[in-house]
């Protein structure tokens, strides 16, 4: 399968996205924000279709909308808690707007399917270059904030007393999540971002109790699952998105067979 350029491009694009999705997803779960990631991707749908309507690249439209939504979430912060109804209505509006933009942009229906369900085999080299930049930016930013992020996530009250601005950390992290969502949507589409961002990290958290190993394992699983999914799609001719999602969800279900925390008790030394 490596003889085809679109396959090589797909593997590179998938890898760039998987690294970000795995690492960001790990903190997303620790912070109990998985549905914020889901919500961002829905808002991104309106951005992607809107961009297509005005002739811009859907990736940039998606990114603009997820970043804006992340800023809004960050500013509202704790006030959003328990506002499921308001958030749900905004999400419906975003998806509805996306449908309107698609209706106005009558060129072809495959564009809509690509945005909703992803099309990693159709990624062009220009997009790969954009993904590379986004991956470098988001991973550097995540590395930069990772220490206060972990502190603010696990011990927020103590972190605040030690001078960490919980608000600033939360905001920066949401912006990183916005980039990760926009990237992940290129591979599995806005509707299935959850599978790529949450499933590998959730699996990792069931296999190790260590933070360092957890991040590494989440990244490794996201990479392996993406590659396996693309290879499976190549072999079966089924949609790539289905194959990636099936593999990553399958791994998660397998990890459920194991009681969490076993490894931690087994090797106490560090």
């Amino acid at each position, binding site marked *: 399968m490596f003889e085809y350029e679109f396959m090589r491009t797909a593997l590179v694009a998938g890898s760039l996205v998987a690294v970000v999705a795995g690492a960001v997803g790990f903190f997303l779960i620790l912070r109990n924000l998985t549905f914020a990631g889901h919500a961002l991707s829905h808002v991104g749908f309106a951005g992607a279709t809107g961009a297509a309507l005005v002739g811009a690249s859907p990736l940039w439209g998606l990114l603009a909308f997820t970043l804006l939504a992340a800023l809004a979430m960050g500013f509202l912060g704790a006030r959003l808690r328990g506002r499921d109804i308001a958030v749900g209505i905004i999400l419906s509006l975003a998806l509805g707007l996306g449908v309107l933009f698609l209706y106005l942009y009558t060129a072809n229906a495959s564009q809509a399917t690509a945005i909703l369900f992803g099309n990693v085999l159709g990624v062009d080299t220009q997009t790969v270059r954009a993904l590379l930049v986004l991956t470098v930016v988001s991973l550097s930013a995540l590395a*930069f*904030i*990772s220490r*206060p992020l972990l*502190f603010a996530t*696990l011990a927020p009250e103590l972190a605040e007393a030690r001078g960490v601005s919980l608000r600033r950390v939360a905001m920066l992290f949401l912006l990183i999540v916005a980039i990760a969502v926009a990237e992940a949507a290129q591979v599995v589409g806005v509707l299935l971002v959850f599978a790529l961002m949450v499933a590998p990290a959730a699996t990792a958290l069931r296999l190790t109790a260590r933070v360092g190993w*957890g991040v590494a394992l989440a990244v490794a699983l996201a990479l392996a699952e993406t590659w396996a999914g693309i290879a499976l799609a190549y072999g079966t001719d089924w949609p790539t998105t289905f194959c990636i999602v099936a593999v990553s969800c399958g791994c998660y279900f397998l990890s459920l067979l194991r009681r969490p925390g076993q490894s931690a008790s087994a090797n106490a030394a*560090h």
Partner: protein
Amino acid sequence: MDAIRLDRVTLARAKRIVLSEVSLAIHPGEFIGVFGPNGAGKTTLLQAILGLLRPVAGRLEVFGVAPMRGNRLAGYLPQHRASVAELCLRGWDFVASAIDGDRWGVPLWTRAPRREVDRVLAIVEADRLAARPLCELSGGEVQRLLLAQALLGQPKLLLLDEPFLSLDPHFQQATVDLVKRIQKDQGITVLFTAHELNPLLDAMDRVLYLGQGRAALGTVAEVITSEVLSRLYGAPIDVVQVDHRLLVVSGHGVVDADAHRHDV
């Protein structure tokens, strides 16, 4: 130099005066039990000492300087703790997350921070606990890790906000004994807020009782009296001694029992 010095300090929360023109001095190495009815300002006082809340008036000094947020001289066990208990992260990693947590960058946990984490875990005798994931630990065990976290960076002052919350009575005495040992071994000044007086009777050097915007600081014999407490509660209070235990009784019943918990 005093560990903590309040000079006519007034503290307010959401424009409500909690403590009014309070003056007192706490010496280095003292174990102070902090008591008072709900809303008397126990947590507010700790937050002011941490620099999270500025006095409306008066001068507050911690080891001779006005408190600043991020002061490394103070270790803190907060009352409201994030629900980390469901996370299956290793206790060791949880404690270590606080190391230099206020600095940007990647937590690499190289040799020096690792040694510091092991040091505080040894102090609270939680070396073995730390190898287990949080989701398998009891409330008392998680609290020992929180205490270890508060000891990171060798603070000279330990602010413990309601450590008895969600603890079985059996663990209460064990917690007090542990904190007392830390106070003695490390020469740390301790402020320990609680509703229950008796578990702390033997450990405390002095009592700080808050109420009605006022404060009384002194030995148990000086402060836990009908006269002082009646003034602080603004209602008649009796103190009854039963088998070396003190019962603080108002017209409505025993005051320092577990009845009221969540404090401001």
